[in-house]
């Protein structure tokens, strides 16, 4: 039984395979996105979140600072409630504005945070006061049409 011959070759094979997997995890993928639940939770209410999904990024100045964890509907105010987790090394002031933006023209939606000047920082579980909802294409179009119609009343005999 040529044990030793097989062992070496198989060991090498497994090593190469595992190395390839590590390569994939580190150099190909974004390991930073593999967050382990560290960080603190924040909440924000929106009139409309558009196409925002769970695990969508939370960015500030274009840098990913967290992830959306949960999306729900407030049963009384009928507002969308978004809970997201911010990585522990970032801090935002109490008057931070959260907006729902779109990546590029047709890209995925994400939460953009703009920090304000308040010296007090948001803590775990805090709710953001100011929010800006997503821009819904249909509403934009109907707005546009209405404004066009309002501009030209003389046309109506």
């Amino acid at each position, binding site marked *: *039984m040529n*044990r030793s011959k*097989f*062992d070496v*070759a*198989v060991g*090498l*094979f*497994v090593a*190469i*395979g*595992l190395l*390839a*997997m590590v*390569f*994939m*995890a580190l*150099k*190909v*993928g*974004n*390991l930073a*996105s*593999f967050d382990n639940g560290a960080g603190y939770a924040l909440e924000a209410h929106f009139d409309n979140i558009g196409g925002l*999904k769970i695990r969508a990024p939370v960015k500030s100045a274009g840098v990913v600072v967290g992830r959306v964890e949960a999306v729900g509907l407030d049963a009384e105010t009928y507002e969308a409630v978004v809970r997201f987790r911010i990585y522990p090394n970032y801090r935002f002031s109490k008057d931070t504005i959260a907006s729902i933006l779109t990546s590029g023209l047709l890209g995925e939606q994400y939460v953009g945070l703009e920090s304000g000047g308040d010296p007090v920082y948001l803590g775990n579980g805090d709710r953001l006061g100011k929010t800006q909802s997503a821009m819904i294409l249909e509403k934009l179009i109907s707005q546009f049409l209405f404004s066009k119609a309002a501009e030209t009343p003389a046309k109506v005999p």
Partner: protein
Amino acid sequence: MRTTIYAFFEAIGHFFTSRLDQLGLAARFTGSLLLVLWVAIRRTGLIIRELYFSGVRSLLIIAVSGLFVGMVLAVQGYEVLQRYGSAESLGVIVALSLVRELGPVVTALLFAGRASSAVTAEIGLMRATEQLAAMDMMAVDPLSRVIAPRFLAAVVSMPLLAAIFTTAGIFGAWIIGVQLIGIDDGAFWSQMQASVDVRVDVLGGLLKSVVFGTAVGLISVFEGYFAAPTAEGIASATTRTVVTSSLAVLLLDLVLTIMMFRGLS
């Protein structure tokens, strides 16, 4: 006229009942195999031996194929992307295609053709020459000594090989895209890293290959075990392994892709 119609329906019915028959047989076989897995797993020496024959021996074809597939992806991808001025996203396209789909699927198809067919032939031959019966008579369960190690080797080899395929592919794409065509090296990698998610894409792809490994491993071992003990029987069993494995991989890929990646769009 009536007899022809009757015969026609009889043929259809027979087709399905014989398939169902086979399915029942396959289910029982799988059950017995799963039961002995606990024992078989401890025979690491046997598993290592099979890992050598199925995995190590497939290394070359997988790596080379991966390299070429990656290169082709780069060429085709660049041709399309540069029309829209998005040539720098080449890394993204290549990486996602390989990690999510081509890595697991093509690897599984190549493995089915190279390693699994050999396993089927080997087991079929052992049955034809009564080696399995002899083992059984010596109170050694052929399921745990012959069948299980080959099955486990397939399950373990597949994700490793898929990772190697994908890595070779990305390397190939890098050679074509960055070195030959001249895309920016930094953009190639950074855009890739921004779009490939470790949990969903990388792990999802690896999960796929484990599933494929299980399916292909089962099929190859099943066909070999129940092959007719003639030259023709073994030959047709080997062909069946390749065909059934390929179809199974593609079907499972469809199901898994829908399950895993539907939520992203």
